[in-house]
């Protein structure tokens, strides 16, 4: 494209230079200032009148005066100095950081007659970068501190739960043992009411033992190493289902398992997940036969989810949110929940344990239900199976 003549005259070029945000200065090959634009005034504090005809060295801090000779040396040999970051001194004595590009100016014959210098004040930029680095470092430090605190708090909590659970067992063992001794040694002499009371003490003791064991399980599943391996899902599910069937002492319908996609996880922990979900399916079957279907799905990111679906008492959306909290029980006994001693007493720790195991795998668990009809829990274990 040809230049438009009126846009190429000296006045036009001077206007461009004057309106530039950068300081644009020209100097002779000896370093004497020959032009000084408005931004140069703003950046360095000197007016054009003060600088024209003066050596540019007035801007150099004493320890950097050698730089000017090196710059001029390059210019005289026809080389440029590009994006050179250095320090200069303003008229008011303040030091500023500048990024400087210096290029040789040639006359019509091609001889080098001077240099143009474009300088940008990068003091603020550098200050912001430094603050940002500092803030980042502070943030990283805070995250590290907080993580350390949380890890410590978690360890403390686990140690506390374990210690409390162990310490609670000793008096409970005494309670159970002496109740037995009382029944065995003096049972014949106790009035009927007293025998009933003793039996109630024994039952309460058993309930407390289940609770303590549940707390210990919950605490243990957050400790120890998690060892991922390919899961034999059908075998794990059927093993749990057989355990549940034995514990209930009754015939259960077959558990339907359809899991074609591979999943990785800690087999022992995933076994605990199945134990809990399948025993819940039986406990909360209500009047319906405990029919359970285990299947898989894939979400948009190809992550494999495992679904455990059963018919039974179900739950609503609010209960689905609450049920993973420890000690939360969705159904009371009079709502059809079956307390099957072989399956534990339903103290509201099972799903909390399941959630903790899933989360330890980096996974997620969700629940959906239809009250009075069905319940479904679905979870993934943090890794998607490869597409086959």
């Amino acid at each position: 494209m040809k230049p438009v003549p009126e846009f190429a005259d000296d006045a036009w070029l001077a206007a461009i230079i004057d309106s530039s945000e950068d300081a644009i200065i020209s100097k002779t090959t000896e370093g004497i200032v020959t032009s000084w634009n408005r931004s140069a005034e703003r950046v360095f504090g000197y007016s054009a009148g003060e600088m024209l005809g003066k050596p540019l060295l007035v801007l150099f801090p004493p320890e950097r005066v050698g730089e000017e000779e090196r710059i001029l040396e390059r210019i005289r040999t026809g080389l440029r100095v590009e994006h050179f970051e250095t320090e200069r001194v303003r008229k008011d004595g303040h030091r500023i950081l500048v990024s400087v590009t210096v290029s040789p100016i040639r006359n019509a014959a091609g001889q080098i007659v001077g240099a143009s210098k474009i300088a940008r004040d990068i003091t603020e930029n550098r200050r912001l970068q430094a603050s940002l680095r500092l803030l980042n470092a502070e943030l990283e430090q805070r995250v590290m501190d907080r993580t350390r605190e949380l890890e410590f708090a978690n360890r403390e909590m686990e140690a506390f739960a374990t210690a409390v659970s162990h310490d609670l067992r000793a008096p409970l063992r005494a309670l159970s043992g002496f109740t037995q001794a009382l029944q065995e040694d003096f049972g014949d002499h106790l009035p009927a009411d007293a025998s009933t009371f003793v039996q109630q003490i024994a039952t309460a003791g058993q309930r407390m033992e289940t609770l303590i064991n549940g707390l210990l399980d919950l605490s243990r599943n957050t400790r120890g190493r998690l060892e991922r391996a390919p899961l034999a899902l059908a075998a794990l599910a059927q093993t749990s289902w057989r355990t549940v069937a034995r514990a209930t002492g009754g015939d259960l319908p077959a558990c339907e398992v359809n899991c074609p996609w591979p999943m990785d996880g800690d087999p022992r922990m995933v076994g605990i997940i199945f134990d809990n979900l399948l025993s819940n399916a039986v406990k909360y079957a209500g009047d319906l036969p405990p029919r359970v279907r285990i299947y898989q799905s894939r979400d948009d990111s190809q992550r494999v989810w495992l679904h455990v679906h059963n018919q039974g008492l179900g739950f609503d959306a609010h209960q689905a949110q609450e049920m993973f909290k420890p000690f939360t029980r969705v159904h009371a006994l009079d709502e059809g929940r079956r307390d099957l001693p072989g399956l534990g007493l339903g103290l509201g720790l099972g799903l909390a344990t399941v959630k903790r195991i899933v989360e330890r795998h980096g996974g997620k668990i969700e629940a959906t239900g239809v009250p009075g009809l069905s319940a479904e829990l679905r979870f993934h274990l943090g890794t998607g199976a490869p597409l086959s």
Partner: protein
Amino acid sequence: MSHRPACLLLVEDSTEDEFLILRAWRQAALDVRITIARDGQQALDLLFGSCPQAPPTEPRPDLVVLDLNLPRVGGFEVLERIRADERTALIPVVILTSSDDPVDCARCYQLGANSFVPKPVDAHQFRDAITRLGQYWTQSNLPAAP
């Protein structure tokens, strides 16, 4: 099996557990002579004779039944000291504890325990476990030759 009753050192700080353990063995008609230590230090004194009130148990016990969570000197240390001393190194040590933590269990075996028995909370299971323990270690199992 030896003609004399087996000598057994029970290291147990809980009087309730002690009562229930002794009751179980009494009901099982176990032929044993039992010495009780209430804490780890007392157990070491009885074994090695540093206690002025009590000379070392003579003969040395055929079996030590050791709790882990003990006052003064803990069960792990008692176990270590028993294994470190040639006079007691071969005595079978059964850990009988409230803990069923696999970490505790592994540590006990590493330190040379012969058996690790978690105390069941349920009274029937507790009695069964204690009875079987007593019968096995005093009747079925042959101690090391002196």
